[in-house]
């Protein structure tokens, strides 16, 4: 009896092991892999979803990993399309770059906050913890609470490279894990400041002009607004037909409309 129980247990354990180790790879006759920036990921997923509805035979895998990983994956032919939320570096010139859309990063405060304009230097000062009082920005002498995104976020990555340059964001920053929850904090605290994707902006918060330029569709489109980042598809010099077709779809009027509906600024 005891032996039987033991055998039962061992069998079960092995079954579980086998289950947990079973391969996830699933081959399909028509598959397209898109990998890269986590900021582009939700938009790529949306586009892929709609494209797969039109072409039911096709399977598109959209993966994250970051812009650099996406460019690397594309070069090593692991993915047919790489995505990036930063410009390509000079040594990445062997790849074809296609800008699919642009996104602005809006700096937001509470609607009751009288400050309307901020410079990049002031913004850097606030997020590095050097400017601590609103009086330095021409308001009352109250502490500034600045809200950051979590480590690994694409929006944070873009904010760091556009605003902080080499400097680090102070570890006193409050941290929230989505555009939506950053907005929620700012909407409830008159002394808070933060940054979110332009597409997420609503009436609960007030977007500041950065270096005297107000973020809107026009200023983002023509790069007048400084905190603008491109969303890029990266292709090898000889892309596969499937990849080219998908890119054509994204750049078509329909694809661009999908992106604008999701809050980005279309490029075409």
């Amino acid at each position, binding site marked *: 009896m005891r032996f039987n129980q033991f055998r039962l247990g061992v069998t079960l354990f092995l079954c579980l092991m086998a289950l947990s180790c079973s391969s996830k790879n699933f081959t399909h006759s028509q598959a397209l892999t898109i990998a890269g920036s986590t900021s582009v990921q939700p938009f790529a997923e949306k586009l892929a979803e709609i494209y797969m509805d039109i072409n039911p035979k096709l399977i598109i895998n959209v993966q994250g990993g*970051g812009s650099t990983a996406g460019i690397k994956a594309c070069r090593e032919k692991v993915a047919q399309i790489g995505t990036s939320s930063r410009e390509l570096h000079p040594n990445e010139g062997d790849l074809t770059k296609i800008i699919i859309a642009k996104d602005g990063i809006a700096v937001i405060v509470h609607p009751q906050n009288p400050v309307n304009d901020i410079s990049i230097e002031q913004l850097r000062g606030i997020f590095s913890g050097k400017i601590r009082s609103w009086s330095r920005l021409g308001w009352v002498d109250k502490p500034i609470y600045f809200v950051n995104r979590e480590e*690994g976020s694409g929006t944070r990555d873009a904010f760091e490279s556009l605003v902080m340059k080499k400097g680090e964001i102070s*570890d006193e920053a*409050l941290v929230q894990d989505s555009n939506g929850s950053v907005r929620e904090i700012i909407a409830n605290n008159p002394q808070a400041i933060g940054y979110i994707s332009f597409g997420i902006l609503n009436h609960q918060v007030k977007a500041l002009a950065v270096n005297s330029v107000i973020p809107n569709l026009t200023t983002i489109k023509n790069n007048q607004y400084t905190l603008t980042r491109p969303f890029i598809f990266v292709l090898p010099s000889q892309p596969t037909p499937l990849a080219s077709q998908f890119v054509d779809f994204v750049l078509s009027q329909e694809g661009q409309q999908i992106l604008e509906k999701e809050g980005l600024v279309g490029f075409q």
Partner: protein
Amino acid sequence: MKEKIIEKILTLLAFSAIGVLLLITVFIFKEGLPVILKAGIKDFLFSAKWAPTKGHFGILAMIISSLAVTFGSIVMGVPLALACAVTLAEFCPPRLLVFLKPTIELLAGIPSVVFGFLGVILLVPIIREYLGGPGLSLLAASIILAIMILPTITSISIDAIQAVPLLYKEGALAMGATHWQAIWLVILPAARSGVVTAIILGMARAIGETMAVIMVAGNALKIPSSLLDPVRTLTSTIALEMGYSAGDHRTALFAAGMILFIFIMALTILANLLMRKK
């Protein structure tokens, strides 16, 4: 024959529960250990610099925050919970008890996100207005957790108090003690191990709580220096960052999970030992 089949099915189910726990343990350690060894145990546990995408894996600030939040919730929650337990077990008429005990247990069934939401909407603005700071703070997290662990501690303590033989109480009363003296000097000391077990299980619940803490704690990576400072616990870090993590960053989160696992394991074993001593 039928008897045996049922017996075997039950054994199988029992083994599967243990199997799952075993798999989780193996998986967490397999994923988490390499990055700890890579960063060095000292730098991992005793450095407060956490920037995993830039190669810094120190979780000291989070360990301190987790412990601080747990301690805060115990300081606020235990007196309340014990008062509740004593009232319900000793002073409460039986008819009211039938109504009150399930009510307190119902408190345990409220989803943590609801507690977090209440915290953000009600508690955080009050703290910001009257005490200062950003409102999202160690204090807010402790208060919310104190409420959340209340039912756990209360119901286990009630059982412990009720398990004290009636003889003790009768003896104390016969010696001329008042009801309160009998509770304070005889019943509570006799129920001590059960009450301590209740507190430890409450601590395990507090240290493992994630959603409500993320919403009210502010999640700053600094080691807190006051009750009004925002804090980031181990659980918050895992939940906040797992969405975008890759490579070493991902395994570092598993390593943080490993530390959490060890904490909770230790608390549970302690609780079990105390329970057996009784």
